[in-house]
């Protein structure tokens, strides 16, 4: 997907993913976007191969006594797109803070 076709909202979600935010509502919280926007956008990004999703390791979930969650990771193509999106939307970096360890 060309960066020109990436909407500001999608670029924001991709930026959050590039900063290591991995889960659906983590992205909702950090971007301030509603769930009705975030989840379909994640599906579209995954279809366009800018993002890939996987289940978190079972051992990790068992250790914290919680169900396994689907997490999203930006792909190499996604990183290229987010770089050009940051050039196109210079304020993008300001909207999404770095993730604290």
């Amino acid at each position, binding site marked *: 997907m060309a960066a020109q076709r990436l909407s500001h909202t999608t670029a924001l979600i991709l930026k959050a993913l590039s900063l290591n935010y991995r*889960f*659906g*509502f983590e992205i*909702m*919280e950090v971007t301030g976007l*509603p*769930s*009705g*926007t*975030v*989840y*379909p956008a994640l*599906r*579209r990004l995954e*279809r366009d191969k800018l993002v890939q999703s996987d289940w978190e390791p079972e051992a990790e979930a068992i250790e914290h*006594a*919680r*169900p*396994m*969650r*689907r997490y999203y990771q930006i792909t190499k193509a996604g990183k290229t797109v987010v770089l050009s999106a940051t050039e196109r939307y210079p304020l993008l970096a300001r909207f999404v803070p770095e993730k604290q360890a």
Partner: protein
Amino acid sequence: MIPSLPSPLPVLDRALLHLVCRLVPLAERPDWLRCWQAELWHRHHLRSTEPGSTAIDLYPGLVRDALWLYTESIHMALEGTALLCIELLAAILLFAIVPLFALSGSGHALLGLLMFNADRFLCGAVLVTLVSFATGSRTVEHESPASLAPRFRAQIFLAAKLVLVLTIAFLLSLDLTQPFHTAHPFTAEILQPQFFVFMALLGLRWNFQDQDNRCKHCLRELATPEQVGRPSWNFLYSNSTELLCKDGHGLLSVPEIETSWRQSSRWIASS
């Protein structure tokens, strides 16, 4: 199998999941349910950084996610199919009738106008079809003989497109000339057949190209064109573009340059 949660979800969440999951295609349903159960569970049990946020915030996302999967499955199932092509042409046909209907003022007057021009349509259509078949149609070699049913289906599809394209071209030519027919009847009479022939020739050229670029088994548009070989290989090996059927029925090899041993495209069916 969907693993059980450490603690059950509230009744409202479970009811919504149960209801909405019906939208999700069967193959993806277990994964979708597992994903949303986990999301809702975490929303209930992990503290949010935003005050006042609840699991209800996730409900629009849950519904839109299921709707997205539903529409995407329909899109994937219909994309490039013969049915979609016919439906699109039928929609264009209806769209082309609207200006004529507006100009005529009533259905009866429109019918009269079409009947009055019917002989002109038939003459032009026969002429354009003959010329197009003589100049535009290409043969596709089949590596193994194709069975009768798919070939018959392909011919029916080609004929349906031909009729629709010719009718659309004729209606559009009337759309373009009827507005000034009362002021300049002679000019309109001269221009209308010319517009019709021009648009019909373009339409039929598209029809043949479209037919060539479809799977010979399911009539779906072929995808992922790949260049095989290079021009310098033309006399030694292969220099062509290969297109694949998404459903895996075979591939079409289209030569870049026509040679005495390779004049037409070749359909290679999957065994």
